[in-house]
C-alpha cells in the first residue's frame, strides 16, 4: 500500500521535475547559458494561469494556455533583454560573461518575483486542475490531476525527443549543442537557433509551471527553491545532457518522496543534497556529463 503510494506520488513529482529541468539543461547545452530566472518564469506561468481563471474567468484550458504563452513571452524577454546584451557586450571580457549572465538572470528572476508579489501578493495560489476527481489505483486513492500531470510531462518530453531527433530544426539545435562553429560553417544562423531554443524553453517552463500550479500550488516564495532544484538536478545529471537530467530528476524525485514518507517531511531535501555532494566529489561532471 505505502509502496504503491510512494511509487505513484514519486513518479508524478519526478516527471514534473524532469520537465522543469529539461528546458533548463537544453539552454545550457546549446548556448552555455545557466538561466537563474528559471524558477521565476515557472511561477509566472502558474500565476498567469491562476489569474486568467480567477480574474478573467476563462475556462481551465484557456487559462493553462495563457500561462504557457506568458512563459514564452517571459523567456524571450529574458533572452533579448538580459542574456543577449551581455553576450554581445564589448565591455565585458569573454571569460567573465558566464558570471554576468548568472548575476543578470538572477536579478531578472528577482524582478519577476517581486512584481508577482506586488500584484498578486505572496499567498500560495493553486491553479484549478483541468481534470478533477480521484481515482483508485491498486488501493491508492490518487487525484486524477496527478495522473494527468505525469502523463502530460511524459508526453511533452517524448515530443521534445521526437522534435530534436526527427525534425530539421531539432537536428540543427542538436548540432549547435555539439559544435556551434561547425553549424555556422554549414550556413545555419546560430542566432536563429538560439531563438528556437529559447522558444522551446519558454514552452517547457510554461507547461511545467502551470502543471506545478495545479499539482502543488505556487507562491512567489517558490522561485528560489525551484531554480535551485532545477540547477541541482541538471548538475547531478551532467550539465547539458538531457537524458542525464531525466535520470537525475527521477533519482531526486523518488529520493525526496521516500524520505518524506518513510522518515519525515522535514528531512525531505536532505538526502538528495547529500547525494549531490557525493556525486560532485566522485564524479564532478555529473552522471552522464562529458567534459
Amino acid at each position, binding site marked *: 500500500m505505502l509502496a504503491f503510494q510512494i511509487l505513484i506520488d514519486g513518479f508524478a513529482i519526478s516527471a514534473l521535475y524532469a520537465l522543469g529541468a529539461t528546458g533548463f539543461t537544453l539552454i545550457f547545452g546549446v548556448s552555455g547559458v545557466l538561466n537563474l530566472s528559471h524558477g521565476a518564469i515557472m511561477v509566472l506561468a502558474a500565476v498567469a494561469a491562476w489569474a486568467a481563471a480567477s480574474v478573467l474567468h476563462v475556462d481551465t484550458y484557456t487559462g493553462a494556455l495563457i500561462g504557457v504563452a506568458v512563459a514564452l513571452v517571459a523567456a524571450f524577454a529574458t533572452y533579448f533583454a538580459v542574456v543577449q546584451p551581455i553576450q554581445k557586450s564589448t565591455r565585458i571580457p569573454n571569460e567573465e560573461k558566464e*558570471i*554576468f549572465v548568472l*548575476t543578470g538572470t538572477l*536579478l531578472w528572476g528577482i*524582478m519577476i518575483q517581486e512584481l508577482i508579489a506586488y500584484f498578486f501578493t505572496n499567498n500560495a495560489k493553486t491553479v484549478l486542475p483541468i481534470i478533477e476527481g480521484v481515482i483508485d489505483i491498486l488501493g491508492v486513492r490518487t487525484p486524477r490531476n496527478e495522473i494527468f500531470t505525469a502523463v502530460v510531462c511524459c508526453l511533452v518530453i517524448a515530443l521534445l525527443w521526437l522534435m530534436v531527433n526527427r525534425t530539421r530544426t531539432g537536428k540543427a539545435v542538436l548540432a549547435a549543442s555539439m559544435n556551434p562553429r561547425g553549424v555556422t560553417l554549414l550556413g545555419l544562423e546560430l542566432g536563429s537557433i538560439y531563438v528556437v531554443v529559447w522558444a522551446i524553453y519558454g514552452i517547457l517552463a510554461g507547461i511545467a509551471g502551470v502543471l506545478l500550479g495545479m499539482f502543488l500550488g505556487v507562491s512567489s516564495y517558490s522561485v*528560489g527553491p525551484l531554480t535551485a532544484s532545477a540547477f541541482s538536478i541538471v548538475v547531478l545529471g551532467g*550539465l547539458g545532457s538531457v537524458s542525464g537530467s531525466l535520470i537525475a530528476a527521477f533519482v531526486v524525485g523518488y529520493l525526496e518522496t521516500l524520505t518524506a514518507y518513510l522518515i519525515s517531511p522535514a*528531512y525531505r531535501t536532505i538526502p538528495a*543534497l547529500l547525494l549531490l555532494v557525493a556525486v560532485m566529489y566522485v564524479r564532478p561532471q555529473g552522471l552522464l556529463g562529458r567534459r
Partner: protein
Amino acid sequence: MGDFFKSRLFFVSLAVVIIASTLPLYVSGYVLGLLTVAYYFGVFAMSWDLLFGFAGEVNFGPTFLIGVGAYTAGILNNQYGWSVYLCIVLGALAAVVAGFVLALPALRVRGPYFGLTTLVAVLMLQNFIVVFADLTGGEIGLTIPDVISIDAGVNYWIALGFMTISAIILYGLSQSPIGLVLQASGQDPIQAGALGFNIVKHKLAAFVVSAFFSGLSGALLVFYFGTASVGTVVDIAVGVQVIVAAVLGGRRTVLGAALGAIFLIVAGEFLRPTGELATFIVSTVALLVILFFPNGFLGAALSHGARS
C-alpha cells in the same frame, strides 16, 4: 603598494573614513544603526570579491561562511554564556574550518560546478539549522543574551573600524604578489600553473581568508542584532545581496564591494515607503548597472579618472 599611498583613491578613501567616523556626532541613532549593518555587509561583499574578482571562483554560498561564523558565535554564547569576544573569535575560526572543508572538494571542480557546490552548502546549513532547532532556534531564530554594546555610536565605530581594517588587509592582499598570482590563476589556470605557481594552495588561501572575514563579520553582526536567524545570515537571498553588492560596486576592486553593499542597504531603506516594490527597484538598478556599466561604480569611476 607604494604608489597606492600617493594615489587619489587613497586620499579619497582616507577622507571618506574620517568623515564617516565623525558621523555619530551629528546624525541620529537610526542612521547609525543602518550604516552599522551596511558596514558589516560591506565586509561580506569584500571577502566575496577577493574570491571572485581575484581567484575567479563564483562562490554562490557566501552565507555558508557567514552563517557558520554567526551561528557558532551565537550558540556558544547562548549555551555556555562565554564572553562575547571569545565567541566572536571562535565563530571566525569555525568559519575558517568550514571554509577549508568546503574548499577542499569544491576546488576540484570549476565554474558552474563550483558555484553549485557552494550553493548546496548553504542549503545544507539551512536544513541543519531547522532540523537541530533545539540548539539553533530553528526557523524562529536564536536569541543571544549578550551584545557588544547598547550604545549606537560605539556599535557604529566598531563596525566602521572593523570594515576599515578588513578593507586595508583585503585590499593589501589583493595588490600583493599573492593577489597577482590569484588573478593569474583565475584568468588562465593552466598557464599560471605552468609558471610554477601552486594554484590550489593560493586559491585555498584566498578561500580561508575570505572565510575568516565573512565569519568574523557574521559573528559581529549577530552580536549587534542580538539574534541570529536564517533570514538574516544564512538565506540564499542574503547571499544574492552580497554578490549583487560586489558586482555593483565593481568586481576586482575590493573597495568597490563595500561601496556597493552600503548603497544596497541604504537604497533599500530609502525605498521603504514604496513598500514591496523596494526590492524590485534595487534589482532593476543593479541589472541596469550590470548591463551598461559592467565594471560597477568604482570600476567606472577609476577608468574615468585614468582617462582624464
